[in-house]
């Protein structure tokens, strides 16, 4: 299953990268969202899949799934939510102020001069 997941993750990364390289701010945001999904799956896969029971001692199993990647991913999910929403609002405000979401036209104003 890990092999299959490796390819699934690869495809998600590919799509995310493609979206992030596009010119529309919206696609970039969707791309980042996709990228975090891919990363979570990647980390989970790297910890080994289906090695044992869910990491709850109440299960009384001989083997448990690796709890550490899960803890890391839980943190990452929530952070990703925070960052994505920040990004969303940034895009929304930028559009309100500047009237475009095209990255070519959103190029920063000249600095210093």
């Amino acid at each position, binding site marked *: 299953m*890990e092999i299959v997941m490796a390819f699934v993750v690869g495809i998600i990364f590919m*799509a995310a990268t493609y979206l992030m390289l596009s010119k529309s701010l919206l696609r970039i945001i969707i791309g980042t*969202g996709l990228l975090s999904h891919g990363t979570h799956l990647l980390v*989970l896969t790297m910890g080994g*899949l289906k090695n044992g029971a869910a990491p709850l001692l109440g299960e009384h199993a001989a083997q448990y799934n690796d709890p550490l990647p899960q803890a890391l*991913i839980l943190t990452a999910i929530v952070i990703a939510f925070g960052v994505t*929403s920040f990004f969303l609002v940034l895009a929304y405000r930028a559009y309100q102020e500047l009237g475009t979401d095209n*990255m070519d036209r959103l190029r920063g104003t000249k*600095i210093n001069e």
Partner: protein
Amino acid sequence: MSLLHLAIVSPLLLAVIIPIFSKSIRQIHTGWFVLPLPVVLFSYFLSFISTTSHQGTVYESFEWIPSLGINFAAKIDGLGLLFALLISGIGALVVLYSIYYLAKDKEQLGNFYVYLLLFMGAMLGVVLSDNLIVMYGFWELTSISSFLLIGYWYHREKSRYGAQKSMLITVFGGLAMLGGIILLYIMTGSFSISEIVAQSDIVLEHTLLIPAILCFLLGAFTKSAQFPFHIWLPDAMEAPTPVSAYLHSATMVKAGIYLVARMSPVFAESPVWLWLVGGFGIVTLFWGSFSAVKQTDLKSILAFSTVSQLGLIMSLLGVGAAALHYDGIDDNVFTVATTAAVFHLINHATFKGSLFMVVGIVDHETGTRDIRKLGGLMHLMPVTFTLAIIGAFSMAGLPPFNGFLSKEMFFTGMVNILKLDLFSLSTWGLLFPVLAWIASVFTFIYSMKLVFRTFTGKYKPEGLKKKPHEAPLGMLISPVVLGSLVIIFGLFPNILSHNLISPAMASILPSLLSPGDIFDVHIYFWHGPTPELFMTIGVVILGILLYLTLPKWEKAYHLLPEKLTLNKIYDRGLESIQSGSFKLTRFYMNGYIRTYLVYIFAFFILILGYTLYTKDAFVIDTTNVSSIGFYEIVLSLLIVVATITILFAKSRLTSIILLGAVGYTVALFFVVFRAPDLALTQLVIETVSVALFLLCFYHLPKFKKEESKIPFKLTNALISIGVGAIVTAIALSANSTKLFDSISQFYVDNTYIRAAGKNMVNVILVDFRGFDTLFEICVLAIASLGIFAMIKLRLTRGKEG
């Protein structure tokens, strides 16, 4: 956590509460709520005198990061106690003074006292912690609070300039000191000052000795405004006068002195130390006093005078290191320099503190500090005038004030250095007494100028903004207390010698003492017709002559072209750094996010691909993989299809729904892979996110068809496929090669035993790795505040926007 620790952090704790007081109780000046704390601290620290005067120390410690050997160790010894008393004592006086200096209805008192308390706590931490890392933390906090206090009147451009300058210079020094701390750790394996002192032989033999000394001295010299780093101190005078009196003359700038004194037991035997500390000190003394004479602003005079006095103490500490080349303290003529250093440290705090307050009064009552506009205030402000006389005469080294005594001892120390036949001191060492003497002449001149230009001569009311009169009683209390101390210490210096000076010396020169021994310090008012006395008489005579002829030779100051002054060099350096880095950045930052992303992804592909290739890391090993179930295949297909479809989605809604689909599939994956917590979180988050996306996209424009050329799309496609391939390759190889044993078994084994929980994931989050979670919720909070700010706070955009 002991009472001592509580005492150190109490100002920080009070700083948390003070804004509430300043906001809710407006009719009482906030200073009154602050004042009790330094008073209590002062009396608390006084109670330690009996311990330290018998060479005892108090040591309290609690573990902070034990795995790295970092403990919050607090230690009271002679030196630390002396500084703690200065900080709390002068602090109390300054707070009292500030209550009258800052009007309660005009100033943002909350901010002011928060910064001041922040500084007080940080400074106590610096002088009382025994762990270098902890000390470093407090050290930087003093820089930051000083920055905030200098920039207190932030609407003035000069304040901001001065604040930035002091921050840049002192933080630069602080970083150098951090380097020195790490070097010391490499040499001794400890961050504890006491332990490092015990291993000073190892340090002195080590090849890293010189770099470590240089790093520490950079920290000390920048903080104590030694030449050529002194340029920040005059600009720091933009701070309110109580701050100048407190930070920039009595306490913070003495942190460098403290550091040198504290590290003396470690480094002082090295000749490099003696020459650097002594040499920079004496040059600073000379340059500071020389520059002070040409100033016309009262506070500038005091600033340069502070620079020069700090140089004086510094040079004494350097020269005092010579004592270490003798075995005992019997007839060791060099300890007198260290005695003088400690004594002058106290004296300087008293007379300079009172002078700053006097200048503050003059500024407050007349509206100007320019001595060209001032004059003849003697009859209008008799008390202030008397205080100025006391302070300035003590500074000039005239009897019967305390400055006279320490100045005499200073000369003794400088003359004695010639007797040491080491490190070519007997030849080049002559520079010390000569420079010391010349500097004293200049000191005399600017002291006289300070008093007589302000208070005597012609009264010029037309140049003043206000009608001057004597200051209110409350404003006079603090300078009067300091002024009386100047006289008391001048007439009865020996009340200090046994209680404060001798224990402090024991901390600076511990190796000279055998157990149970103490430094027998006795300060004499009259020591017969010695060379020092004649030096003082010479200073006075030449000083009076030069002061009277000042207008004639003042032009000499204009000989040095403006362009070559240190300030100009600093300004130009700062400008060229800015423009240089701007050019460098412009070279590769063209303002398109896409370009940056291309950089990132290209490097990602190249570096990882290269590593995989050269290390032969790419392996596929299918022995340990888990079985493939039916559901998993379905989910995999689902997620792949959804992902690919997003790429071709034509409308916003479709892509959001598809993204949601991917998210929910990920949640299902978590279910299949037995991660219940993740599945729950992902489900809820996905729901909230989709709602959020819909809310935002409702306002955003529709997808436009990407009007882009084929090459553009092709590059994107190539890079994306590269990223995908690399990630897959890494995933495959990482899964196939296990280089290390997993650390996860620890959590499986200890979740119940050590943390009494059964859900390992949650226990890791709140207990084993609680620090991560703490930071995570901080990040979340910051993100939400950012969003709030973006939407709610609409600053009116200027035309340039």
